[in-house]
């Protein structure tokens, strides 16, 4: 019960903190504590991203992805920003509050917010932006999230109310992503992209190669320290790290455990990471091989999650046992313990054999291989099927797999659980359907964070741990490695989504 | 010792070194060629005739190492001792060679006029204009009537006889002391052969060159050469004035060569005689 008390205290502190900060927040700082290192003004930073961007349009899928956050924050500072333990805090916005039913959300903007061309950013702009994203002609992935809004009521230039079709206590998380990146629906920049209101604007852009952003002359908030930031797109992880070591770039995004390990022992480098990517083995329940819960339980018992963490994440990262393990008030549940003998009793000689689909990144294949080895040790025959990235999502959605390793960041806030565990959840690739869980999570959706909500989530998690449609594995680290001379980095280790505001960082003062 | 010799070869022995094995291809060859005269070198394929020429000139076949001993004096040059630039100069000024296959001995990618005068180009002794003038002049002298336009042609645009005339012209360019004909008529038909041999004769008269004529056709050697040496397996088996060699051959091999020439007035044979038939030692 100690954990319960601690999480209550943390929750209370967070709420108090939010209220305080919303009253006097400076738009450029997130609520996470800033390291008190002196940051000099000026200079330019070179950052290496792990993917190629063909476009910088805020409405596209790639701009909403975690590794691109630093750039997205620079150009299109979202309304809300991730805070510790899966909570959210105002970013561009001044405040966001819901009523008791979690159906009506009131957004307040600071005074005198402007787009990068100087034109005012008002609640009308926010509304227009949401409508633009909801329009199928825009082809934005945010359309799915905009669809949950039944109406928007504008009270005045800085206040508006979102009416949701159904209660959603996690609506704030939507405004931390594409939906919350407010761009102008009337003005575009010289590159043809709708302009944003972030601290930087685009100076040059070579699609698929690099983009340079410079200080926004018309920024409405406190000016950022760096004069400019150049983002280079380098999909090859080794190449990226080598470029950092040789000094070609100053900061890189990476998710490779061995690189974090190397960087930690190098005094010229600094590591800023958080466990942000959760992996879990999905079992296709429509396949009769997995029909028996005893089998599924035995499979869970055959997997040593700590060993997976040690091998795949090199000990960095943690094990998880529910969709809410990363969050501030993570439920404590009974998840099947690693027990080879118990597993063998059920599986040995049973002749179970199935395939594990994994996306073909070296990381995922390694993870799948580790699991395969563990299952082989208890008499299960496993075949690994690598599937390339773009096909993997489709295969999951079409339930074209027997077992699949899912690596995702949807569990960075409480909404993730419902996505995998409810019968109609968009990430429910297992085909799991439990009326009880639907009910629990449905009720939880309407509750804001608190002991009641936690109870519901815990019960649901326990059901998941008993029914085992998916076998939980680990949460791996993801984040930045940079030159030690880059200062101003907040402590991101408690975040569930690594998001850094470029306005905070810069070169260390001499 | 023939003090009027343009070419003096003494005890020339050539060994081919290849993949660690040695083979003697020319053995103990001694002869001399008097200035202004012609010498026919006769023998079957493989007798060592071509290797003899290569040994005298010092041009080894591609990819093959030769070891040459003895002495060769050509137009005053000690050929076996010369190196690099000196050898090239000696070859360019003292020797002119006419090759067996007129098509293959001309570079298909270079115009005939340029090939005709390439000796000058390699020596660097004449300007482009001079070379061009010289080339046209030379072409006229070997029988090309519209020399200016013809000099810009490529070898494949000429007939066999025309090509051989180019070859002769190129050989005569520096008015060399020695002309070497390496089976110059083998690839030609008989009527063309006669014209080419006549041209060769006229050229010699003009330039005063001596001549080595390498051939397997004893008949041609008999007709055109002052002296003949017969080679077999790398050695000289017979040597002397043409009339002596033809009328009174000393060596059975020579006799069999003579016998194997088909004659209109001889007995009608079922099968042509080859040199192996007939008495041989």
């Amino acid at each position, binding site marked *: 019960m100690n954990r319960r008390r601690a999480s209550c205290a943390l929750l209370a502190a967070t709420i108090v903190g939010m209220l305080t900060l919303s009253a006097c927040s400076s738009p450029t700082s997130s609520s996470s504590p800033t390291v008190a290192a002196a940051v000099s003004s000026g200079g330019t930073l070179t950052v290496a991203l792990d993917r190629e961007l063909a476009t910088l349009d805020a409405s596209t899928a790639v701009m909403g992805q975690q590794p691109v956050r630093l750039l997205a924050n620079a150009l299109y500072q979202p309304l809300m920003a991730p805070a510790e333990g899966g909570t959210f805090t105002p970013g561009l916005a001044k405040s966001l509050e819901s009523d008791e039913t979690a159906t009506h959300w009131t957004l307040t903007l600071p005074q005198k917010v402007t787009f990068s061309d100087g034109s005012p950013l008002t609640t009308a702009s926010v509304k227009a932006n949401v409508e633009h994203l909801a329009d199928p002609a825009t082809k934005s992935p945010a*359309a799915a999230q905009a669809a949950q809004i039944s109406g928007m009521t504008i009270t005045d230039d800085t206040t508006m109310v979102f009416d949701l079709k159904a209660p959603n206590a996690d609506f704030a998380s939507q405004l931390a992503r594409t939906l919350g990146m407010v761009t102008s629906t009337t003005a575009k920049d010289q590159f043809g992209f709708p302009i944003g209101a972030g601290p930087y604007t685009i100076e040059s852009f070579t699609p698929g190669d690099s983009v340079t952003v410079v200080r926004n002359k018309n920024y409405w908030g406190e000016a950022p320290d760096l004069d400019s930031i150049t983002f280079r797109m380098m999909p090859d992880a080794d190449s990226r790290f*080598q470029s950092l070591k*040789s000094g070609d770039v100053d900061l890189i995004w990476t998710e490779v455990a061995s690189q974090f390990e190397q960087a930690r022992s190098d005094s010229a480098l600094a590591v800023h990471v958080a466990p942000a990517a959760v992996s879990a083995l999905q079992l296709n329940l429509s396949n009769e091989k997995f029909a028996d819960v005893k089998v599924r339980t035995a499979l869970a018992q055959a997997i040593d999650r700590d060993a997976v963490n040690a091998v795949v994440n090199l000990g960095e990262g943690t094990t998880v046992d529910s969709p809410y393990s990363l969050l501030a008030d993570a439920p404590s549940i009974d998840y099947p313990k690693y027990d080879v003998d118990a597993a063998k009793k059920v599986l040995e000689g049973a002749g179970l054999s199935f395939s594990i689909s994994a996306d073909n990144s070296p990381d995922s294949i390694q993870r799948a291989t580790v699991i395969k080895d563990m299952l082989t040790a208890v008499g299960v025959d496993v075949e690994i099927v690598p599937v390339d990235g773009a*096909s993997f999502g489709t295969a999951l*959605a079409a339930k074209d797999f027997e077992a699949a390793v899912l690596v995702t960041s*949807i569990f960075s806030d409480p909404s993730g659980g419902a996505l995998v565990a409810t019968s109609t959840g968009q990430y429910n690739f297992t085909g799991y359907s439990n009326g009880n869980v639907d009910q629990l999570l449905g009720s939880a959706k309407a509750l804001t964070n608190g002991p009641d909500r936690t109870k519901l989530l815990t019960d649901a998690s326990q059901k998941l741990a008993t029914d085992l449609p998916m076998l939980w594995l680990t949460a791996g680290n993801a984040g930045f490695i940079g030159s030690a001379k880059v200062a101003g980095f907040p402590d991101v280790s408690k975040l569930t989504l690594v998001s850094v505001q470029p306005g905070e960082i810069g070169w260390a003062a001499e | 010792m023939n003090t009027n010799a343009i070419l003096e070869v003494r005890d020339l022995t050539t060994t081919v070194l290849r993949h660690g094995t040695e083979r003697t291809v020319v053995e103990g060859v001694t002869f001399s060629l008097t200035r202004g005269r012609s010498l026919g070198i006769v023998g079957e394929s493989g007798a060592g005739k071509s290797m003899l020429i290569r040994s005298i000139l010092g041009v080894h076949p591609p990819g093959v190492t030769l070891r040459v001993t003895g002495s060769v004096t050509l137009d005053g040059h000690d050929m076996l001792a010369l190196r690099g630039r000196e050898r090239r100069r000696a070859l360019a000024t003292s020797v002119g060679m006419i090759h067996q296959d007129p098509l293959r001995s001309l570079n298909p990618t270079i115009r005939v006029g340029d090939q005709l005068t390439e*000796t000058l180009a390699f020596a660097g002794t004449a300007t482009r204009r001079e070379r061009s003038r010289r080339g046209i002049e030379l072409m006229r002298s070997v029988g090309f009537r519209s020399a200016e336009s013809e000099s810009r042609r490529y070898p494949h645009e000429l007939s066999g006889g025309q090509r051989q005339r180019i070859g002769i012209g190129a050989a005569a360019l520096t008015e060399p002391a020695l002309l070497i004909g390496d089976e110059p008529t083998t690839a030609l038909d008989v009527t063309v052969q006669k014209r080419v041999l006549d041209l060769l004769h006229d050229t010699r008269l003009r330039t005063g060159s001596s001549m080595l004529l390498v051939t397997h056709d004893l008949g041609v050697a008999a007709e055109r050469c002052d002296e003949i040496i017969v080679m077999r397996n790398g050695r000289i088996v017979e040597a002397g004035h043409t009339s002596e060699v033809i009328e009174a051959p000393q060596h059975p091999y020579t006799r069999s060569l003579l016998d194997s020439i088909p004659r209109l007035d001889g007995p009608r044979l079922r099968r042509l005689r080859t040199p192996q038939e007939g008495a041989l030692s």
Partner: protein
Amino acid sequence: MRIAWLPRAGRSLLVLIVVSALTCQLAALLPGDPAFVILGDESTEAQREALRHTLGLDQNAFVRFVNFMGGVVTGDWGTSFASGRPVLVEILSRVPATAELVILSQVVALAVAVPLALHSARNVGGKLDRLVSTGTFLLLAVPSFVVGIITIQFFAVQLGWLPASGYTAFVDDPLENISHMVLPVLTLGLAEGAVYVRALRGSAIEALRSPYAYASIVRGASDPQLLWWRILRPSSSTLLALIGVSLGVALGGTLLVESLFAIPGLGRLTVSSLGVRDLPMIQGVVLFAATTVVIFGILADIAVSRIDPRSKHGLV
């Protein structure tokens, strides 16, 4: 140009049409759904269906092929799914980087290969020949990206003389551009050079055996004169054909070297558009690559006909 060019042009056009048709067909067979990639994991099937219809993905391959070819002749090669910009514009924006990389590496390859090949051929089995043989053997056996990684590790990370990756346009900063190009050009150029050396050496050995080589030597040609004035031309046909193919293929994008050195060329564009199932872009890049191959094949044939006059008359 005395090559019969009309049937050749006709055949080339046919090649391009067939290549485009095959690409449209193959793209349709690719697993993975572009609508999924664009709209993301949280979209509904209904939304994806609607997008598929908008993008014309529900038409069959033949219809898409006809529309594509129709657009191609008017300069409209389609619109990229990933960037929303016209495909032809995206492709042309990548051409300078790839062209610079490819052309410079061809120059390096030839500058190294031709002298080495000719002089090795002159003394087959000699010291230079054996050195060159070993060297080319190594370069052919080792994949280009391994060579690239080694050069990066040595020159960029250890010595710090050159940048490890990246690209600056020549018009922006010539010096930066050159320093970024050195390692990739070296990597690509050495690999190509190895192939060229072997081809030219073989042809040159053949040419040196011919009577015209003997003739030129007797006329007093020195080794350099013989090799460069009299042997290079007749030995070049194979080499020219190889260069034509190499150049044509490479201009379609050298993806290994571009990916390793982060050069924004056609190769990288091809890889990324495949990865996100950007079908219009895939079709466009393939057509462009096929076109460069065809064009440079024709140019190589023209070069061979000028080098070797026999081919004009159909003799070679």
